[in-house]
């Protein structure tokens, strides 16, 4: 059965055609490339945006602190037990050719507060200090928080999507396939469940416990799986009535075989079309919750928290500009991908005959 399920994802001529079609829609295709690059970069963000150096050479030894355990300052001949400040170390090593520090392009972590003696945060963008997008009101680098916030939001969104779709497809498909009382029962259940005000639930949860990544995912899955069921139910009903399903039945195919071999592959285009929009919805939802203060606990880097800071501190326009620009860019790219996928999966290339 597993083997059969895998066949859904095997490239067949139609998929190839759809891929070709997708590539021909330029802005969707470049958006996909862009998002992929961003995601890939965010996966190795520790090398690019980090207060830990990429590499240090000291007394003939090479250190790679990025993914290792913390290295106390004493290790490099500095007079403190806590984690080495690599930016200071770089200044310290200046003029010593044997010892050197290779810093990340953005030498700040998302948590570190960095203060200047002559001014109060938030600090404006500065190439000299390598705060390329400035800092927030706690003196933390905005670019660092954007990057780690992006990774978190995308991760959240993808996990949320996977859970929602697995539940939604399974239940929706079952409703359409079996129909009858089962369908009726679940329809009513979903109708009732959809009317529970989701935001209140989140607010109640957030006031009682500090929401973690997984509590948020759980709560959002509990209230988010219903959307997909309607589409799957409809498409299953439709496909089930087709002759090829009847033929499969007549040949003695089991229900499992019919669902996995015939119905699901034929409804996959619907699911795929929805994915980009669900990703965008997930990112927006997390940002909105963080903005309202019901999301991930501080000091987690988050776009919503940055947005809240930015709107409360309009005199520091770089905060709100950065996060709004980042959000617009990502959501726009996701929307373009979605648009291109929809086009590519649309069997009617032309809407009228010529």
């Amino acid at each position: 059965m597993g083997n059969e399920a895998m066949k859904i994802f095997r490239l067949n001529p139609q998929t190839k055609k759809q891929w070709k079609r997708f590539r021909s829609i330029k802005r969707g295709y470049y958006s996909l490339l862009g998002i992929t690059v961003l995601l890939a970069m965010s996966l190795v963000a520790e090398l690019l945006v980090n207060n830990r150096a990429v590499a240090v050479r000291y007394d003939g030894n090479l250190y790679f602190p990025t993914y290792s355990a913390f290295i106390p300052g004493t290790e490099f001949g500095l007079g403190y037990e806590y984690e080495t400040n690599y930016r200071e170390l770089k200044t310290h090593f200046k003029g010593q050719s044997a010892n050197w520090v290779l810093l990340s392009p953005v030498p700040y972590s998302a948590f570190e507060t960095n203060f200047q003696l002559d001014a109060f945060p938030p600090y404006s963008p500065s190439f000299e200090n390598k705060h390329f997008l400035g800092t927030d009101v706690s003196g933390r680098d905005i670019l660092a928080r954007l990057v780690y916030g992006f990774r978190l939001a995308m991760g959240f969104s993808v996990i949320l999507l996977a859970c929602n779709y697995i539940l939604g497809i399974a239940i929706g498909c079952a409703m359409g396939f079996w129909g009858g009382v089962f369908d009726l029962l679940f329809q009513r259940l979903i109708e009732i469940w959809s009317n529970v005000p989701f935001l209140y639930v989140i607010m109640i949860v957030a006031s009682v416990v500090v929401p973690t990544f997984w509590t948020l995912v759980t709560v959002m899955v509990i209230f988010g799986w219903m959307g997909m069921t309607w589409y799957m139910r409809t498409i299953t009903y439709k496909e089930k009535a087709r002759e090829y399903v009847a033929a499969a039945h007549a040949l003695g195919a089991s229900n499992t075989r019919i669902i996995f071999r015939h119905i699901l592959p034929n409804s996959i285009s619907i699911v795929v079309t929805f994915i980009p929009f669900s990703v965008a919805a997930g990112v927006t939802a997390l940002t909105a919750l963080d903005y309202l203060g019901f999301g991930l606990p501080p000091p987690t880097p988050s776009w919503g928290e940055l947005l809240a800071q930015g709107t409360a501190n309009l005199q520091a326009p770089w905060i709100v500009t950065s996060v709004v620009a980042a959000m617009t860019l990502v959501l726009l790219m996701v929307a373009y991908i979605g648009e291109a996928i929809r086009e590519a999966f649309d069997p009617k290339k032309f809407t009228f005959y010529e």
Partner: protein
Amino acid sequence: MKRALFLALSLFLVSCSQDDAPQAPGQIPDTDAAELTLQSRFVEELPTYESLPLPAGLEWVTNVEDPVWSSPEATLGGTFNISVLSFPLTLRTVGPDSNDSFSAYKRYTNLGLVSIHPNTLNFIPQLATHWAFGPDGKTVYYRLDPDARWSDGELVTADDYLFTIDFMRSEHIVAPWYNNHYTNQIVSVIKYDDYTISVEGATAKPKEELLYEYGLNPTPRHFHKLDANWVQDYSWRSEPGTGAYRISRIEKGQFVEFGRQEDWWGNGKRYLAKRFNPDTVRVTVIRDMNVAWEYFLRGEIDAFPVLMPRFWHEKAQGEPFDNGYINRIKFYTDTPQPSAGLWLNTDDPILADRNVRLGLAHAMNIDLLLSTVLRGDYERLKTHHDGYWDYSNPNIQPREFDLQKADEYLDASGFPNRGPDGIRMRDGQRLALRVVYSTQEHTPRLVLLREEAKKAGIELNLQLLDSSAAFKQILEKQHQVAWMAWGIGLTPRFWQHYHSENAHKPQTNNITNTDDPQMDALIMEYRAATDRETRVRLAHQLEQMVHESGVFIPTYKVPYTREAYWRWLRLPEHYASRTTEAIFNPMVEGLFWIDEEIKAETLAAKDRGDTFEVVNIADTTWRIE
């Protein structure tokens, strides 16, 4: 205990909101019901009370020697404009919906029996001219001022005080807290003649505490008809008071106006004269602080509190200030400070170790916090009871950020080694502590402390909860570290915070679970002592023990008030007093007055573009170093 907590919570909220714009809920009252009634007699047959013979041997005291702190130059007249964020839901001072942001105005239309001189801190006469203490240590006798009048001209007599008890105990007012307070805290009020009463409290206390804790306001018995409809009937009736002002006009949802009494009985009294000077106080509802600020810049509001750093540093700048139309004042006060800081739960296995607590204290970079995130506006709080005048122990200095000392204490505590992330470990347990707090605006402060604490190998995990959930956790002693502030009292309160009787059980204020027999003995001695010298000595000793135990890490205080005001508001020579909370509150101290000539001059100059000398007052008379 409940009351203390209630006070603490409300004061905490007040102290929190000093730097955050408090946004009152945008609730709009049923405006049709908001018809003001100025009638003041609703009761035909007044309740009267029996007189008892006055016990012999009472030693009557008064105080007419303390200096007058109002200005002899003050003149009556003018309209003072000020703003609030929301319209009151009712004009009642008790009962449902009465405790809102407006209640401070409503309550100050009535005076108390005695008051505290804001500079000498001695008690001074107000509605009572003399007072005497009973031998039982819990009763105070008062001789009432026969000149006192309600704002409708009726005499204020002993019966009005006895009626307060009937009123406050009544179920018709739907106010359980008051029902309880006037039954269990104020046990009885006795009349001896029309102008002599006594008030008996529940427990014996030192004299100053008796006057402070068991105070009593008269209630106009000719005004209140107590029946089942009281809550509804009295929502929009303007209650006569003993103070200078009475609500005289309201415009639904827009403003409340207070009118000053002509021939107010207090005009000729030593400590009441030349105060509460504007003829009219108009409190306008402006639902947004930033909008209110714009009104202020146009001169439609006369004064604006600018304690919040954002207002002081960014908004209170520019043309109207540089042209000398609007003055600024930063006035240091000397008054008890809310105990803001980190409260450590000693029942927690990690924090049970004193070395960890002291190590943590030395790992808190409060000075960096003050000089960066708090913009140098706040000052370091020294102890739990800071600013309690002679009661505060002047020899205690808070623990400074010192990683070497932190390392020494933490090494001694059995957390000598650091894990792979730089956090100290003991038998596989990380030195990670959860800090519960409830104000989102405090997050940047905690974020800074968290990052600095990492240097000492301590991890702080921030737990932001909504305030009721946070207090529930703290009062059930489920917290590790609580980031909060207790409100203030007249004298230090050790029993509720540090006595073992309140430790290890929920719903008490001993949130550190301090349990020390030696301290218990001293606390009981402190509670029983009635002479000031002994109490001060014990308070110093106890404060020292609290400091030694390291259960509280003090953070910051704001020992001043800041205001911006149009130059036509005039202040006395010394601007304000030692314990002033708000210089331009027209009803609490009410020292300022309006100069109409200067107002006309200023407005004309503003039109022409003429300028005046810039006034930027920084008064440090009462600053404590």
